[in-house]
Structure formats: C-alpha cells, structure tokens
C-alpha cells in the first residue's frame, strides 16, 4: 500500500488498463494541475492543442510520439502536448470540461458517452481490429480443464469493468456461456494467483505480461474475441462537437499529422521503441523494453490492415460502426445510440 493516502499512481502497478470511472470526483486537484501544465505555457502561434491518452505512456500511443518527435505536428502548425492517462486521468472528463482538445478513446466508450448526451465527435479510427482476449488456464486448480468457451460455465473469471466490459458480455451472451464474473482492476493478479480460471486481456499488453511472468502459451487457452465474432474497433481520436465546429481545420491538421505519425512508427520500429522508452523512463514506469517491442508490433498489426483485412487505415466503416452498435445495444444496455452521420466526421483518414 502506498504511503500516499490517495493512490494517484503507484510504480508497483502494472500498466494495466483500468476502468476508473468512479474516481473522477476525487481528482479535481490533479486535473487542475494538469490544466495548468497543458494550457499555461501555450504560445499564440503555432496553435497549441493537447491530446489526452488512454493510459500511461506505452507503445499503444507510439504514433503520437513519432508525430511529435519527427515534427509532423509542427509542420501542420500545431503545438501538441501529450497528456498521459491512467487510473487517475479520464479523457472523457477532460474533453467535457474543455481542458483537452482531443482524446484517445475506445469506440464503445465514446458511443456510450454520446448516448448519455456528451456531444463527442469521432475524428479518426486508429485501432480497427479488436485486441480483446480471454485467457484461461488450460488446467485450472479447480474445475474441469478449459478447452472451449463452454467450459467456462459456472467458473470464476475476471473481466474489466465499465466500457471495457461490453465486448466480454457480448461474447458470453452470444455464445450462451454463463461464468461467474469477478471484477478486474488495474493489475492482473487474481488470475496468476489462480483465484480465477480466466481473465480479460489485451493481446498487445496483458497477454504478454503473463508470458513475461513465466506462463507459457501451452499453459493457457486463449480466446480471441475478434475471431469469435465480437468485432469492435478500439482506439480512436475524438473531440467535442464544439471544437470540431469552431476549428475544423485544426482538427483536420491534427488527424492528418497523427496518422502520419503512425505511418512513421510503422516504418521505423527500432526508432519508435527508443522514443517510447524515453517517455517510459521519464515517468519512471516499471515497463521493460521487450514488452514495448511486443506491444508495438501487436498494436501496429491491429492498425494497419494486412492483405485480406477489410478495414482502411484511419477510417471507421459504416459496417463496423453498425456491428458495434448492434453488439452494444443487445448486450450492454445501450438504449439510444448515435447515428453514424453526425457522430463520425467525414473528414477522417486525411
């Protein structure tokens, strides 16, 4: 336990995804500090904007680091500040309050927020292929061996909360599986302690963390949600509708440079990893380089379509949107959902 009374960030935590929606009210002080950091030193020209990342610095955001490092934002006349995410930072809140211009969010989260009335607009779809996995012990300490999804019936497993939960609920519902679902927070601890037979994991992150803790591929059964029909695009770039209406050029420039940054990262792996590790070290994060290498490779594979993939880099297709909306409506209690037009700008992929 941290000697700090509020666990803002703990070096011992794994950089795991964590739904932290319940803590927003306790973070006023922190956010104030960030606001000062973000807007205090902004110059008149070039135009200052900021991007709130999903999570702590890692390869998941490599494209933005490279756009910044290679001067792609500057070339568009933008002075971009990257704001780290984490359990104590919530991009949606920063957008709502107008303290952030852009945010990297999950499509499902954004649709739910929009359905709740937050006027978000979708600027670009970065991750088009789902990275969600369900990792299960092949031979759990209790219960039958796990070979198929149906073997999870009545078994304890951990799943993320809130907006990361929807795909799993959709998976279980669509396959008629009824497991005992325990919450999963920032760290992946109950599964390795064998307190659960399965856990949710991102292919580019938690899955590899398990590998790095001595769990071998033969020890676990991995279910890919994408392959099991739960095809939900993930990370995208979002802004408030006002920002989009008032400063469309800025939005376009930002999207254009960000996509260029991703292209650069795609073409320069080693250089990109070096850049990622700079951010990691600056924040003293307990992240090793090999993990970042893995993460970059996997995230790029879900961003850039391989031959045979149906999506277009940077773009959200109407079909993928419709599929996501159907899944959310059916399995996640999303009653009113935004129409594609109006939510998704037609300026993306520039």
């Amino acid at each position, binding site marked *: *336990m*941290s*000697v*700090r*009374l*509020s*666990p803002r960030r*703990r*070096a*011992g*935590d794994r950089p795991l995804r*964590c739904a*932290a929606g*319940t*803590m927003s009210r*306790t973070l006023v002080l922190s956010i104030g500090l960030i606001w000062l950091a973000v807007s205090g030193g902004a110059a008149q020209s070039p135009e200052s904007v900021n991007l709130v990342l999903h999570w702590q610095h890692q390869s998941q955001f490599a494209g933005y680091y490279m756009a910044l490092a290679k001067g792609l934002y500057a070339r568009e006349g933008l002075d971009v500040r990257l704001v780290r995410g984490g*359990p104590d930072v919530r991009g949606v809140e920063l957008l709502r309050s107008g303290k952030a211009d852009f945010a990297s969010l999950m499509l499902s989260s954004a649709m739910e927020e929009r359905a709740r009335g937050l006027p978000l607009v979708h600027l670009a779809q970065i991750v088009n292929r789902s990275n969600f996995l369900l990792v299960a012990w092949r031979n759990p300490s209790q219960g039958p061996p796990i070979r198929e999804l149906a073997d999870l019936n009545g078994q304890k497993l951990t799943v993320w909360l809130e907006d990361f939960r929807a795909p799993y609920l959709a998976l279980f519902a669509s396959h008629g599986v009824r497991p005992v679902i*325990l*919450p999963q*927070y*920032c*760290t992946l*601890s*109950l599964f*390795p*302690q064998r*307190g*659960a037979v399965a856990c949710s994991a991102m292919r580019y992150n938690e899955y590899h963390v398990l*590998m*790095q*803790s*001595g769990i*071998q591929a033969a020890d676990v059964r991995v279910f890919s949600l994408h392959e099991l029909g739960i095809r939900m695009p993930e990370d995208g770039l979002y802004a408030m509708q006002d920002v989009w209406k008032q400063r469309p050029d800025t939005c376009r420039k930002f999207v254009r440079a960000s996509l260029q940054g991703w292209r650069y990262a795609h073409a320069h792996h080693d250089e990109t990893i070096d850049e990622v590790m700079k951010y990691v070290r600056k924040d*003293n994060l*307990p*992240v*090793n*380089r*090999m*993990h970042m290498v893995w993460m970059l490779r996997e995230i790029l594979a879900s961003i850039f379509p391989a031959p045979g993939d149906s999506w277009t880099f940077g773009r959200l297709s109407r079909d993928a949107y419709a599929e996501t909306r159907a899944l959310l409506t059916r399995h996640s209690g999303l009653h009113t959902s935004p129409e594609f037009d109006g939510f998704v700008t037609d300026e993306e992929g520039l």
Partner: protein
Amino acid sequence: MINLLNRSLAYRMSALILLGAGLVLLLVQGVSHIEQRRRMLADAVQQGNTLAESAVFQIEVPLGRAESVVQQTAVFLAEKEISRAESAGLIRRTLERNPNLLGMAIALNESPASQGDFKILYGWRTGGTIQVRDREAPALDYQQDWFYLPNYLKRPVWVEPYYDSDAKTSMVTYAVPVLRAGEVVAVVTCDLALEWIHQLLDALPLGESGMALLLSHRGTYISHPVRALEMTETGFSLAEAQADPEMSRNLYQLGLDMLSGQPGYKLFKRPFGDQMAYMHYRPVPATGWALGLMLPQAQVLEPLVRLNRIGALLGLAGLLLLLIPALGIAWSVARPLRHLAVAAHRLAAGDFDARLPELRSRDEVARLTVAFDQMRHNLRRYIADLTATTAAKERIAGELSAAREIQMRIVPKLFPPFPHRPEIDLYAMLIPAREVGGDLYDFVLLDEDHLYLAIGDVSGKGVPASLLMAVGKTMLKSIMQSVRAPARALAQVNEELSEDNELCMFITMFCGILNLKTGDLIYANAGHNPPFLTRRSGAIERLDQPPGPALGVIPGASYHDCSTRLNDGDLLVLYTDGITEAMNSTNLMFDENGLLDHIRCEGHQSARRFLESLEQAVHTHAAGAEQSDDITALVVRYRVPLAVTAGSIQPVLDFERPPDATLRLHNRLAEMNRLTVWIDAQGIALQLPEPLLISLNLVLEEWIVNVISYAYVDKSEHVIEVRLWRDQDDVKIEVEDDGKPFDPTAQAAADTTLALEHRQIGGLGIHFIRKTMNYFAYRRDQGRNIITMVKTNGEQAVC
C-alpha cells in the same frame, strides 16, 4: 630442430626421454586436474546450497514475524468489531512494538454488512513518528491488490512488491482477510521496506563475480545487483531479449526452474560473455519468491587454475632438470657409436687399421664393435682372395683375347683382297659369339684364274672349336693348293680329322674353286648350309646338291664335286647357321627367309655393302638378344674379265659430247711426229699429268704404228682419226681407221713366258695396251675399225 633430431642419436634419445617424462607428467596432471575439478565443483554446489539455505532463512525470519503480527490482529478483529479510535490505537501500538514494519492498514469491507464508522485507516512511520490517517480515496484502494486479492482469495497474501517513489524504497505488503462467517469483513495489512534484503544479499560471500537475485512469484526482480532491473524486468523478459533463440530458451527454462518451488542448482550459459555459471535457487516458501545465487564456473575453478599453473611450472622445471642426465646418458651411448662410424668411414676409404673404440662393457654397442672387427677381418681376407682370383681371371682373359686375335689372323681379312682383279668383288665377315669362335672362311687365288673359296663351322664354341677350326682351315687350304679338287680335298681332310677324334668334334665345310675366266664353279659340301647363288636377273639358286657328312665324323667318307657356272654380275653367298639361326628375345630365328629377303633387297649392292647391311639386319632382328653363335658369311660377285667381254659392257666413261680434241693423220709413219706434238699440246691444254701423257703417247704410238703398218692392203692414202675426251683425271681415246677388220681384243693374251723370239708379232703391243689402259674395246662400224681406250684416275691398269 627436426634436422638436429635426425642427425644425432643423443638428441633423439634425450627428446624421447623428455617426451616420455612429459607425457607421464601430463597424465598425472590431467588426472589430478579432473579429480580436483570434480571435487571443487561438488564443494561449490554444496557451498552454494548452504548459502542459499541460510539466506532464505534470514529472509523468512522478519517476514514470518510480520505475518504473525498481522495474523494476530486479524484474529482479534474477527472476534469483535472495533471503532475507528480503537483501530487507530491498535495500528499505532503495533507499529510501536514492531519497528521493522513501515506501515499498517485496517480496511473494512464496503459491503453493507459492515457497520464500521470508518472505511480504511492507515498508519505509517514518518520522520520518527507514527501517523494514523483515513485514506482519502478508499474506492481506488479497494481496487488495489492488497485488498482485492485477500478479498477474493479469502486467504493471506504477500502482494507483488513494488517501488514506492514517495517512501523511496522497495516495499512489500502482507494482507490478511478478516473472515466472519465465511465473509471477508475487513482486510489487515502491513508494509515492509525491502532495503534490508538488499543488504542481506549484498553481504553474502559470493566472490568477485558471483551475485544474488530475488524473484517475486511472477518472476519480477525484487533484488538484483543491477538495481535498474528491479521491479521492471523479469527473468523471462531478460530471456526474451536474447537474440540467440537457444540462449533465450535456456534462460526462460532457468526462470521456470527457479520458480518451480523446489530448491536446486543448474549450470547455464550466461548472456553477455557466454561464461558458464551455476545458479543455486531456493524458494522462499512464505511469499512464493525465489532466491538465486549465481556463481560463475570460472570463479569456482579459479584455485584450480592457479594450481594448474603452479603444476605446469614445476613440471617444466623438472623436465629441464631431467634434460641434464638424459643428455649425459645419451652421449655415453652415442660416443662409441660415433667412433665406430668414424672407423667405418675410414674402412670405406680403404684404411683397415682404423682404431676401434675400447670395450668397456658387454652391451649392444660392445657387441656391435666386436662384430665390426670381425667384419673387418673377413673383409680383409676376402679382398686378398679377390685380388688373387682377379689376377687369375685377368690372365685367362688375356689369353682368350690373344686366342681370338690369332683366330682372326687365321682368316684373311684384308679387303678388298684382290684390288687388281676387278672381276672379283669379294667380302667376308666373322663375328664370334664368344671370345673365340668355331666358324671359319677362307679364300685364296690359287693362280691367275682360280679362286679358292671355303666356309665352315666347327661343332662347339670357344678355344677348342677355334683350335679345330685352325687345323681344319689350314689343312684344307694346303691340300687344296695341290689337289685343286674340292671333293678330294674334303675327303683327305676328313681322313685326317677322323683319326683319333676322341672329342667327337667335327666341322661342316663348303669349299669350291671358281674359274675366273669362265665363271665355272666346282664345289663340294661336307654337311654345311648350302650357299645361295644370285643371278644377275634376280633369280636365286640354292647350291643344295646332296652334301656329304661333316668332316671328322665318318672315317673314309666320300664327297662329290658339283659344278655350276657364274655369269657376269652373279653373286655367290656362303654363310653359316649363325646367320639363319640368329634369334631375338622371343626365340624367333632370322631364318633362311630372312636371308633370302635380304639377298632380294640388297643383292645388287657391292659385296662389302651387302655383308655390312646383312650384319645390320641380323642385329636388328636380334634386337639386343645375346648372340648365340658365330656369324660368318662370305660373298663374291663374279665379273667376266674385260678381255673376254670387250664391247659387251659399257665403258666406264661414257662421253656423249663431242671430243675435246681431234687429230687426223695419214697412213704414213712420218705422221708420228705430229702425233707426239699433238699429245704434248693436249697435255698442256687439258692439264694432263706427266705420267699419263707418257702412257698415252706410248699406247697411241703403239696402236697407230700398228694400223699404218698392217691395216691397209693398198698403197693409197688413208686418214686415221684420233679423238680425245677428258673429264677430270679420266681420259678416253678413240682411234678410227678404214683399214681391214681387226679386233685386237679378240687376240689371245701374249704369252709373256715365251722367249721373245717366239712371241706373235703384235701380240706384245696389244698386251702393252691392255696393261696400260683401264679399258680397251673394239667395234666395227660402217666398214671402219674403232678402238676405244680409257685411262681412269691414273690407277693401275687391268691384267
């Protein structure tokens, strides 16, 4: 070096001794090395395990103390619900009593069952005092592992250690659920700083390059000499970073082994430098951590390396010391051998008195010396014997050589034998098989017109054969001189040889007499190979009338004369079986056919050329095979004498061109002066030598006087034409007259034995011309007499 070893026995022996000693030394060193290495490694394993065991014990003691403190508190809380104030007091007192604890928390569960007046209380040490406060964001705390894990696992948990940047130390939390009726109503925790673990592990006696690791149950480095790896890297992430897949696999497996919960050790290859090292690992049972002590093999074996180095140096020194006696022994063995070598060299140079080394022992060298001495004595005796034998052999060889010379002198071998008789072209050869042979040939002019020829072969070879051959030859020749009948002569010789022929030696013999005037050959054969007669036309006849027995075999045997006529240019070939039976290395004989072939090819050559080429042919046939028999042959080509055949053969010189000078004379004796003047003039003009001029003068004068005196029956005037050609030393003269026919060449030779007054007139003139000129011919052409005379090369004239 190799050169030196090859040259000297002493060096080679020393080298062998050193090599042997070195090998033994190496073997001892090697065995000792292997044994010591084995023991050192076993000791190191033992030592590593002991160290690991003690280190784990030292780690577990404070952890166990903390566990019991927290568990007691949990037991207490399970019994009774306590207020915020009581809880704060409990935390404060516990921290006061347990100075190794950094902090402590009591967290009530959020569930509605809990009725406490606080959510989470946390006490910690700061600046020497203890503070206890409510946590500001309990909702986030409930998500933390220290609450989350015991809450769901319902058992005490050592949470994964972490680095606390506020406390600036690695920390670990022990969390125990408070269970009431199976429900988790609260969680009690304590925090421990892990700095003491660093100190503990750093203090372990692991040597210069050994190191200690502490891994969490998920493989994360809790303690590592490289602090930057702590809490960031795991044993598996370092394995993953290896470029070499095998190294990566091995390190990954090592991590699995370390976390298997069983103590053990493993020899593995270290990344960075590829050194082999031992990893001794041991679980920390309370926490699920693993302690690893890494000891490089090189470090473990370092004393062994030192020991080896000392051993090698001592061994080297020992070998160098050994070199001195080794060289001494080798020299003492080699010295007499060297002396022997010197003596042998002098012996080879002919010095039989070279001093031998003294015998000091009875070893192999001494035996060699004795044997050498014996050899020297034997050699000396042998050489003396050899000298005597050689002298005897030389004497015999000299005598044999003399015998051969005598034998060769017996047969005539001056060729051409009759240079003044152009009608006889004769050549003979005798090539003895050994020093002296048994073959013979012979020829002699019995008188002006009769040529005696003989060829024979004595049975056997060598001196006896040659002696018999000399006897036979001499006897036959002398008998032939008087008897002049081959058959009778052979019969007489046979009688002589048959008497007392105890050695049973015999001679085959062919002999004959050739009438040079007529070409008639009378011959008889005593068992000899029949000779061949080659006609000018090319036909070959074998003179194979039945021969009589060989000479010396049958007393009283009779022989028969046979005869044949040789025409002009015919070639008579006498030979012995040495020619026809000459064999090559495959025992193929030259054979009669070989001889006949040769006669056909070379029969037109002169006698000498014919025999020389025959000898060559026989040699070629033998192709280096040893000559087994004497090779003997005699050939004679018969030419009809000039006086007999004048006009029938071509003049030696045949001048087609007009004469170089011509003189016309009238049939008056007074014209003779003109003749003399003319000849002198031609002598000057044609540069004829003085003797030739004189001869020409005499011959022409003789003939022309003859023509003027006797050729004309009337008294009218006639012209006599003299024509002269000259070619170098040869001179041809023609004299043409229109007198009555007269062939001087048809006149019988002058009988010079008669007294002058009885001789036929003119006969002497013609005789003189014949004597003087080489060629003398007559022809009658359109009522005119033409006399042709040739004088060649100033040679002696025929007849």
